[in-house]
């Protein structure tokens, strides 16, 4: 997926004006592992899967994936895989790249090692098959314990099973596009992602998480 005209226009404009610039992020997507998306999930408030590709989001020029190769912690030891794979840049849906956490409420935390303005977070839980993860909550904070100054950016825990508040966001079907979350430029060092099983099993999985900021 390329956007030559948008890129060219923005690059040309950027060359002429030394001011703030906005540019589309060219997020490299992993290979799709299935064609089409089944919609027979028995999940409340489910986002209708869309087959058309997602357009690139715009962000201030120069922002990057600040989570790449950053340390990752989790609420429990992984059943399979290693936590560093969550930020290793490998988004392919292979058994090698996936990290599996125990059943029930689990979370992973990425330490960005510095405070960043975060504009977007993209999550790939598991896209080898179509499935929906339950109670997905994404938070950013300066506090590694997530007690103070916590910004909740996404919450589809509509029944408040995690006790983090009633979510109003939609459930979604995992695809190779991942889930793009608007972080609204929030400042923070730690990114925490919660979940509580999925429509296929009770376990929690992560292939990759990208955090775009500056």
């Amino acid at each position, binding site marked *: *997926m390329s*956007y030559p*005209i*948008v890129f060219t*226009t*923005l690059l040309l*404009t950027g060359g002429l*004006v030394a*001011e*703030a*610039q*906005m540019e*589309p992020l060219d997020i490299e997507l992993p290979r799709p592992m299935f064609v089409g998306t089944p919609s027979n999930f028995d999940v409340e408030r489910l*986002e*209708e*899967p*869309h*087959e*058309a*590709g*997602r*357009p*690139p*989001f*715009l*962000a*201030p*020029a120069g922002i990057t994936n600040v989570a790449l190769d950053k340390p990752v912690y989790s609420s429990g030891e992984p059943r399979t895989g290693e936590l560093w794979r969550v930020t290793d840049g490998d988004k392919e849906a292979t058994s090698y790249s996936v990290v599996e956490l125990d059943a029930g409420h689990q979370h992973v935390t990425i330490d960005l090692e510095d405070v960043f*303005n975060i*504009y*977007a977070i993209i999550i790939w839980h598991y896209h080898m098959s179509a499935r929906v993860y339950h109670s997905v909550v994404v938070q950013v904070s300066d506090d590694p314990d997530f007690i103070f100054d916590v*910004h909740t950016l996404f919450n589809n825990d509509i029944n408040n099973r995690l006790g983090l508040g009633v979510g109003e966001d*939609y459930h979604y079907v995992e695809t190779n596009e991942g889930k*793009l979350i*608007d*972080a*609204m*430029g*929030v*400042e923070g060092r730690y990114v925490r992602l919660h979940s509580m099983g999925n429509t296929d099993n009770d376990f929690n999985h992560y292939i990759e998480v990208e955090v775009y900021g500056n």
Partner: protein
Amino acid sequence: MISTTILRWKFMAIKIKPGFLFLVILVPALLFRFGGLSIRPMHTDEAVHAVKFGELLDNGVYLFDKNEYHGPTLNYMTLIAARLGSFDSFISLNESILRSVPALSGVMIILLLALLAGYTGWRIIITAALLLAISPAMVYFSRYYIHEMLLIFFNLAFIVFLYRYIRSGKPAWVLLSGIFAGLMFSTKSTWIIIFAGQLIAFLITVRIYGGPKPVRYMPSKFTATHIILFALSAAIPSVLLYSSFLQNPAGIADSIITYREYLSRAGADGLHIHPWYYYISLISIDSCSPLPFRADLWIFLSGIGGMIMAFTGKSTKSAKPSRSAKPSRPGEPGCNPIILFTAISALFSGIVFSALPYKTPWNMLYFYTTMVILSAFFFVQLLKNSGNTPLKAGYMALVTIIVLHLGWQSYSDNFKTFASPCNPYTYAHPGNDLLTITNEVEKVASISPEGKDLYIEIIVTDNGYWPLPWYLREFPNTGWWGEVNMEVPAAPFIICSPGNLPQLTKKLYEIPPPGQRRLYIPLLEHDPELRPGTEVSLYLRKDYYDRYARSNNRVLEY
């Protein structure tokens, strides 16, 4: 046998039933002018006039602006059309009702010619009516919501009624002539150029046909009362219109002051500065057509022929204008005063409009109209002079080819390439991208919680967002900006020209505090053009985009 029949044909049909033929000609005139009036996207100028009219329709207020928009007749004539069509608000309007006003004017121009048949003969009138009915330029701008066709109509009515008055002396004609003179004055400042040429043409024509006494053929009942009647009938409508029916008396003075503005701008706007041969190039060639030249060129060339005939008096074997000659009667050969008058005013307007550096395609229309009449004169004389020779069959075949070419060109210009840059009458005309933008706005509104109250920010350099205000007239919370306004909050839907992107980025990602810098997504893969060369980008805030994507997952073809 067939050729013999053709050779013997002496316009008998025209002589027998000219009125019927005239009505037949009205059929293509009406079809070309009123068929599919809404298919062409609105031009910037049309949209500007439409929005101006919207204020009159919604609020009952029209204020003449001496700097912009031209005169009030277009607005008030449209008000009549809207009332007749039961359109009671700006939002309810459509392109067809707006364009029906110039379209009707285009038809009235043809109908008016019938009033001259008694002085020129039906052959010229019917030929001119046919050429006008299918002329590409006349059809194109009869479907264009601007003042030009009204100006031509009012001017022709003024001349026709004045001529009938001169020939008959009946006060009813001078009354009508005065009214249309007033309407002409209330339409567009360029009337003065047309009128100047006509005044010169009138004086020369009277001089030639009137002999030593310039008023020799003036009516015997030509009195000062009639002059006063003319002045009053011209003044009353113009005073009423410019003053918004006495609600805005300042409009009367402004109707005079406006000429100062008009003169100061005549050569100032670089966008409309064109070389002297601009109009000739418009009517001569285009890149749409597979043919080597445009059909309008026939009009121009034959019009030149008619002009030469008018000036040299060699239009017939015997006719040579003489100072003692009376105006020709119906059916009589010869160069009558109407044709001479037309030729002189055509020459004058052609020279003046070509010499003025400020040019737009529609400014040539008066010149073009006079050339159509001269063209008709040329063809009629050509056929008449050829007698019953084989040459006549050749001329008739040529005329048939020309008529077919004109009809095809009109169809192509108005129903196929109506917005294409290859059509010379398009003038920075918006294309179908405009409809794409409008459709996207409609779709986003349909999924937004606010519906059509959706807040939209439109930022186009130099306020070049027209004609979008027409297309987004149902969206009251649309902000129109020539540059990024940092004082107002960012809208969830932003349409922005590339030049404003740095400022927009600052507004979205530098000014708001962390946590309030929302993510935007370009709605279309390729930036659409408002007009040729004016691209805009459509940005949708991500939460709205998510709704959009959920509601119609096949909308975006990324």
